[in-house]
């Protein structure tokens, strides 16, 4: 196989603390190690056993990405407890940072989008925003170098609870039938057109919303990280592994340099996607509560 390029090693790296997409156990069992050799192919017999044998508990529940999410959640909780500790009327710098972030969601998102009774949703939105942005920023920072929510499992979870939240809010306010009618029959649309509009509204409000919510967050981070990896891995490969071709080497160097720009873009995407997620959550809640559609 020869010498493996550094970038490719990162790309495929199975252990914790690197940027591969595949989850790997933090404390791999013997079974997992046997089934995931670093080099070489599995024999047909071993492959069959690996596919049929029940996985070891810790191989699935204690993976690098789950650990990363737990660290992210811990950081978020510690941050909030720290900045909100004994708040003063005249804020300290520490408190000021917390207030700035808290107010951005409380006033800029919850109050502006939801209006009356927005306080109920503030903790939800604050928790969601900070949890998402911290995990997104993991994609651009050392130690992790991987955006946790480019693993789609987390994101489906968020989309589903958001779906439950806004539907529950609507049903609580209007009752099941009235809510369903409000969400499917827009006011002031004449009969024949309603035949076309109502199914669209139904699909849009009950099916597409959670799917787009999840896909937007997931795909942005997934594609962004893929892009970063391609620039870094490809650039590194061209720079270090191609011999006797100056053009490739130069192109590789430029690519690696350009990956910094992509990283900068990823910082923006990390913030933007977290913000969009909570803004849309607030928007869906507002539309479920709205008097007129």
């Amino acid at each position, binding site marked *: 196989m020869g010498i493996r390029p550094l970038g490719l090693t990162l790309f495929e790296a199975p252990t914790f603390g690197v940027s591969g*997409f*595949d*989850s790997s156990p933090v404390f791999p069992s013997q079974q997992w190690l046997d089934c995931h050799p670093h080099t070489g192919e599995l024999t047909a017999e071993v492959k069959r056993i690996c596919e049929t044998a029940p996985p070891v508990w810790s191989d*699935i*529940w204690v*993976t690098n*990405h*789950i650990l990363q*999410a*737990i660290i*992210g*959640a811990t950081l*978020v*909780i510690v941050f*909030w*407890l720290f900045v*909100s*500790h004994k*708040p*003063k*009327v005249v804020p300290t710098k520490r408190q000021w940072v*917390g*207030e700035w972030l*808290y107010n951005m969601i*409380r006033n800029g998102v919850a109050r502006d989008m939801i209006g009356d009774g927005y*306080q109920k949703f*503030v*903790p*939800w939105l*604050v*928790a*969601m925003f*900070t*949890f998402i942005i911290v995990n997104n920023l993991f994609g651009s920072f050392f130690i992790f170098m991987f955006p946790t929510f480019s*693993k*789609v*499992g*987390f*994101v*489906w*979870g*968020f989309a589903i*609870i958001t779906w439950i939240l806004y539907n529950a809010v609507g049903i609580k306010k209007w009752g099941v039938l009235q809510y369903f009618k409000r969400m499917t029959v827009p006011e002031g649309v004449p009969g024949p057109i309603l035949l076309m509009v109502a199914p669209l509204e139904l699909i849009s409000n009950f099916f597409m919303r959670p799917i787009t919510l999840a*896909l937007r967050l*997931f795909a942005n981070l*997934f594609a962004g990280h*893929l892009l970063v990896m391609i620039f870094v891995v490809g650039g590194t490969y061209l720079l270090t592994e191609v011999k006797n071709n100056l053009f490739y080497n130069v192109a590789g160097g430029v690519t690696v340099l350009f990956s910094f720009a992509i990283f900068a873009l990823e910082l923006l995407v990390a913030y933007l996607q977290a913000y969009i997620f909570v803004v849309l959550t607030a928007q869906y809640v507002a539309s479920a509560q709205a008097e007129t559609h």
Partner: protein
Amino acid sequence: MNPLEGQGPLGPLLPSHWSEFIVGLVLFAIIYMVVWKVVMPRFETMYTDRADEIRGGIERAEQAQDEAAKALAVYKEKLANADDEAAKIRDAAKATGAQIEAESRAKAEEEASRIVNSARVQVEAEKNLAMEDLRKDVGSMATTLAGKILGENLDDSSVKKTVDSFISSLGKETAKK
């Protein structure tokens, strides 16, 4: 594994482990509870305090303003009272002054009339005295003159009587006139 390959027909859109799904939800629930039960009450209580403090400050300022306005009103009233009092005192002084003037004028007039009267009495007395002297002198002079004219001494008492009665009738006539 190729990241785009994933597992099953949905490619990377299906989670490789459903543990992620559960863990994501549990972690979110924990963060939510912490923010809801601890962080939000802390901030909201502080916001209420801050709003109270600002409102209290405004109220205190308003109160101070009210007090100042009241003090100003009291001061103005006092000033007006003082003006009134001064005017009253001035009026009283004027009245007193007028009275004193009138009194002193009356006194002066009385004094003047008293002096005039006493002067008049004295003049009268002196006039009478002078008249008496004159009468005596005129008698003696007239007798002397008549004696010279007649060539005899008329210095006896009968003559004197005649002369005196003449002069007194003369005085009566002048008095009549």
